[in-house]
């Protein structure tokens, strides 16, 4: 979309600074943005882990036992702990950003952004409580 440019004697060459490869280290908010983007990789890992678990269950008790033994190894444990931290970070940042993306009208008035974020957190707590009840209830 950028149009071609032309220099003339009356219009000397413009300065076109290039962005540094490390631009994202220049501000804390840029670092947080990149961390949020990277968190998608760990969410991918969590989904793959879950699918592997389902496949192991489907293949019988031996396969499930092997999966549990693999999941208890140090590298997988470390990966899962790191993934959990990134997933929580991913969820929290998106909950906080939700009010910017959603405009909800109730009775002809805009709902305050804080209520939209709060409803996300409430849904998160409800879903977590439901899973906890299913597992330990």
């Amino acid at each position, binding site marked *: *979309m*950028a*149009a071609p*440019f032309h220099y003339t004697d009356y219009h*000397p*060459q*413009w*300065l*076109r*600074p290039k*962005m540094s490869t490390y*631009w*994202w280290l*220049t*501000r804390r*908010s*840029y670092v947080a*943005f990149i961390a949020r*983007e990277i968190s998608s990789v760990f969410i991918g890992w969590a989904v793959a882990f879950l699918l592997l678990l389902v496949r192991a269950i489907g293949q019988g008790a031996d396969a499930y036992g092997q999966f549990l033994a693999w999941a208890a190894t140090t590298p997988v444990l470390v990966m899962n702990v790191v993934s959990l931290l990134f997933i929580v970070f991913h969820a929290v940042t998106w909950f906080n*950003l939700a009010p*910017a*993306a*959603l*405009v909800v009208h109730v009775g*002809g008035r*805009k709902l305050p952004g804080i209520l939209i974020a709060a409803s996300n957190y409430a849904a998160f707590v409800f879903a977590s409580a439901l899973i906890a009840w299913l597992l330990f209830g």
Partner: protein
Amino acid sequence: MSDRITLQVARYRPEKASEPFVQSYDVPCPRDWVILDGLNYVKDRLDGTLSYRWSCRMGICGSCGMMVNGEPKLTCATFLSEYGSGPIRVEPLRNFPVIRDLIVDIGDFMRKLVKVKPWIVRPPTEDERPISDGEYRQTPQELDEFKQFSMCINCMLCYAACPIYGLDPNFIGPAAIALAQRYNLDSRDAGSGERMEILSEHEGIWGCTFVGECTKVCPKHVDPAGAIQRYKLTSALATMKSFFAPRGA
């Protein structure tokens, strides 16, 4: 607080040197002086060769946007006293080609702005109401839908804050999309379909990865990041609608 402060100003004079350099100026620092007052002092008293844009001095024209200590700011609305004893680094807006000193080329933005048709598009003439029916009135709620986006002054601080625009100059950018939304949400407008062709391209809304800095630096609280995310929802719903009801049923 000291009664003087140092401005470290980025200079670029292409007819004399191919590389930019920094020049320091010692200027007075009264409590009511903004950065622009400091630059005007330099221009009037110290160095008449310094080039920069300014006009209204009251945050309306959007001409005096610059990087101040690495942050995009309107220099008419940023006080020298905010920076203690200094020094204060003043540079041209990031992500734009520099023509001279603190002046950047805004042609790319102006071309993109026109593409999103930032004006009220009326339906075909045969669908227009007769003039005798009077003006098109809006309720306060209808005005409230787009008013926030109409506050944009085209200062381009949001482009300077946006790393996506810096990495991909084809990205339409925050202000142009916010201004498109200003008209899309206007009850008198009938041009949202025409704008969608431009906004729904990869270089339109989908180029944005929601860094959110555009909203943080906006001096008029326009919230371009919010405008882009809301339009993503609009575009996605329109695509789904066209997929499931291709004939508009």
